[in-house]
């Protein structure tokens, strides 16, 4: 239990150890730690930035979506208006066409009625002539009684 030269030997060993640690152990390890710290910090910053970007993109997407919705609504309204217009237009033309058709039908009917009346009149007048002839037992001269016939025909009108 006495102090002896071991002390000096131990001090030399210690000095060598400290020197070695200072020279070869501490700097590379502490450098690596610093670098890793930096890396982690950068990674975290990048992650944060990424999240920010996502938020921004989400906002943008929402904006676009809103715009698209408005646009589509506009388009739908326009299309509906156009469809209504087209319907209205076709209704109009259909109405006109129908009226035209009715008109022509009416004219035709009138014409046919006229014709029917004419032929009826002729029939009636010839019948009347026949009836009168038989009554009179003689041929009524068409030429002679032309005036009378046409008078009667006119009355039938």
């Amino acid at each position, binding site marked *: *239990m*006495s*102090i*002896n*030269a*071991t*002390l*000096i*030997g*131990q*001090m030399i*060993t*210690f*000095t*060598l*150890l*400290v020197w*070695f*640690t*200072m020279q*070869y*152990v*501490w700097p*590379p*390890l*502490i450098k*690596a*730690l610093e*670098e*890793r710290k930096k*890396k982690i910090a950068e990674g975290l910053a990048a992650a944060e930035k990424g999240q920010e970007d996502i938020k921004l993109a989400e906002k943008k997407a929402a904006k676009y979506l809103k715009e698209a919705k408005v646009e589509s609504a506009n388009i739908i309204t326009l299309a509906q208006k156009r469809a209504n217009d087209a319907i209205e237009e076709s209704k109009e033309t259909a109405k006109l066409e129908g009226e035209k058709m009715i008109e022509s039908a009416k004219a035709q009917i009138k014409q046919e009625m006229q014709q029917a009346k004419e032929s009826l009149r002729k029939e009636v007048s010839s019948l009347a002539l026949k009836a009168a002839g038989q009554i009179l037992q003689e041929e009524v001269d068409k030429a002679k009684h032309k005036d009378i016939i046409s008078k009667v025909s006119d009355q039938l009108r």
Partner: protein
Amino acid sequence: MASEGGSSGYIVHHLTPLTVGEGFWTLNIDTLFFSAVLGALFIWFFKSVAERVTTGVPGLAQNFAEMLIEFVDQQVKDTFHGESKLIAPLALTIFCWVLLWNTMDLLPVDLLSLIGSLMGIEYLRVVPSTDLNATFALSISVFLLIIFYSIKIKGLFGFVKEMTCTPFGPAMMPFNLLLKTVEELAKPISLALRLFGNLYAGELIFILIALLPAFVQPLLSLPWAIFHILIIVLQAFIFMVLTIVYLSMAHEDH
């Protein structure tokens, strides 16, 4: 187990170092050998980690080394507020080396001396921190650094002024010098004796337990060993922290 000379002979045998030489020039071969081996172990581990160091995902060894380094670095940063390339590696070396010394205490007391006796070595004391030479070698080195940095930072004049004119002013010069000298000398002495005392006592208790009957020993040596895990780390930690504190005090200019 119990050698010739009874229990006291056994204890003395276990606490006697292996020596060569005479007088002051005696060398404690076991202390020198084991501390050198442990120092080499420390150097080998950290050097191998430092060579393969990566900034990416660290391996197990690197993780452990980084844990120690960050722990020491934090202690240094908390206490020492200057720029120094020396203090942090010094603190790491002290912590790891002393820790390894102390850990030798957990080896069974008879194991290495038995192996030694088989190899024809009569005395073997395996825990370097139970040798005053080892603890004083550390603390005197630290003491020399304290003096060196005190003079380097404050200048020779500033150092002399601090030694003579504080804490009571120039009028009390001799008294100040005495007080400061005692204060400075107390640092290495308390550092060395604290470590030595704790580990020497711990080893002594292990030896005493080893004297008891075999079936009682585990009951006592297990709790003591578990408690000692705390002691060995704590003593290494205290030595390191006080070294940092003393050196940062040396860096402070009043």
